[in-house]
């Protein structure tokens, strides 16, 4: 069984982004870019499935600018066998990415596609579910545990109030939550090996997909800022403030 793992290149999670003064977006020139952390968990999970013998091949896919190659090389250093880049300079929204991934999935026929539950840039939390719907597949979002059986996957999900377990008919879509696994550190020998792995590049036109954005961003602004309050000297002063100033207790 092949496993497909889509990976997104995003601003590194340690970077605090700044809104551009003309409100056209956030300034991502010269900031560190990394693989979306949830996608990294997806690559790790797929790699573990291969190491256990449950998967035969792990294929990483990325959609976006030419530099997404670096993200794919990272995925291959973790353990993906090869990479596919759908290269475009157009701003890709989740609907368009799901359409591109659908075409790739139809070509590659994976038994499982593991995506991050959300990307930490647009915080959309859509692509996996959209892809599942377009393919007519089952889905388990926010996964904290994945077990494969005969033609099925049993997935534990993080939901409001606790955990739930569902069983999916394969092929299926799984989206990762933080507790699914802890991705390994990539080693230098694996980085070197990843450079020699196969990487194929397509354009959205090659795949016959219209990727034009459906949402127009009119402006991007700073959130209302919250100023620091006061430091109180002791517990008594704190409780006094809460009772008499803030009146919340």
């Amino acid at each position, binding site marked *: 069984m092949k496993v497909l793992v889509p990976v997104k290149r995003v601003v590194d*999670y340690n970077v*605090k*982004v700044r809104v551009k003064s003309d409100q056209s977006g*956030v300034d991502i020139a010269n900031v560190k870019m990394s693989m979306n952390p949830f996608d990294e968990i997806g690559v790790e999970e797929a790699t573990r499935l291969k190491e256990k013998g449950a998967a035969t091949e792990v294929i990483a896919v990325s959609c976006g600018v030419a530099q997404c190659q670096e993200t794919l090389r990272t995925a291959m250093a973790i353990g993906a066998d090869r990479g596919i880049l759908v290269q475009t300079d157009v701003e890709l*929204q989740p*609907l368009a990415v799901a359409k591109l991934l659908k075409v790739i999935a139809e070509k590659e026929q994976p038994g499982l596609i593991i995506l991050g539950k959300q990307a930490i*840039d*647009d*915080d*959309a*939390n*859509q*692509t996996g*579910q*959209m*892809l*599942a*719907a377009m393919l*007519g597949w*089952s*889905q*388990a*979002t*926010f996964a904290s545990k994945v077990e494969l059986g005969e033609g099925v996957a*049993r997935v534990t*999900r993080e*939901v*409001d*109030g*606790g*955990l*739930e*377990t*569902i069983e*999916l*008919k394969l092929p*299926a879509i799984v989206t990762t*939550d*933080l*507790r699914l696994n802890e991705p390994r550190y990539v080693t230098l020998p694996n980085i070197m090996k990843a450079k020699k792995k196969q990487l194929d590049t397509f354009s959205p036109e090659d795949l016959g997909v219209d990727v034009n954005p459906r*949402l*127009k*961003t*009119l402006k991007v*602004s700073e*959130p209302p800022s*919250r100023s*620091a*309050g*006061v*430091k*109180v000297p*002791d*517990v008594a002063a*704190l*409780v006094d*403030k809460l009772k008499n100033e*803030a009146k*919340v*207790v």
Partner: protein
Amino acid sequence: MSVLVIAEHDNAQLKGATLNVVAAASKIGGEVHVLVAGANAAAVAEQASKIAGVSKVLLADSPAFADGLAENVAEQVLALAGGYSHILFAATASGKNVSPRVAARLDVAQISEITAVDSPDTFQRPIYAGNAIATVQSTDAVKVITVRTTGFDAAALGGSAGVETISAAPAAGLSTFIGREVAKSDRPELAGARVVVSGGRGMGSAENFKILDPLADKLGAALGASRAAVDAGYAPNDWQVGQTGKIVAPQLYVAVGISGAIQHLAGMKDSKVIVAVNKDTEAPIFGVADYGLVADLFTAVPEIVTAL
């Protein structure tokens, strides 16, 4: 123009999040209908009919909806989608699970986690963990939206909409519900609590986390945790407050032993009053706290309980 709100419920009780979504729907304008897709969920439909601003409740009752499986609920929403200009879900675990399936099948973009309605086609939504607010305009005929509940005050009760039973969409047959482990608690639900007491890595252990119990009891608070505390196994995952966990905006948020990473602040900085207890005077949490107490939490927390 008419808006369909997908009710959030457990087949017995309507969840409070639905009230916030109806409030967002009322800002868009037009008639507001609520869909209750559940199993033996007539009581939920009854509760939904009392929300002010709702003109009709649609009840689709089927065993297929008992556990909220995304594939089945999405089919039900799609069966109705033709009649609406807007379809709104709460941005909760279940809403986020179903909504993109609906959008994809309608071939429209989804607008995630809106916090404000500027016009029927223009909305505000936070991006980059709330470090920027994007104003986006949809060019699609149908707007499929998830609503961040903290962005809208709950709609009032007092309505008297009619309940119409509709035929249920057939089960998709793609997935099966196996089981659920839900922590039983007498405390309020984290997402809608008036007061939240959260612990961070500074708590040191799951055992130590228990010192927050008396404080939460005294304040009638829900318990929360930072990602660091959840990752370390000090607190269950559904307590996580932050960019990728729950977004809360209580009247009072008490952060104990939490340093204040960007992704945590994203989940709580819209709280009305924030209290931080931390022994590190440089902790970023003090940058957003209304009241900061630099102290060892193990002595301060019991003292606060006594003083309240």
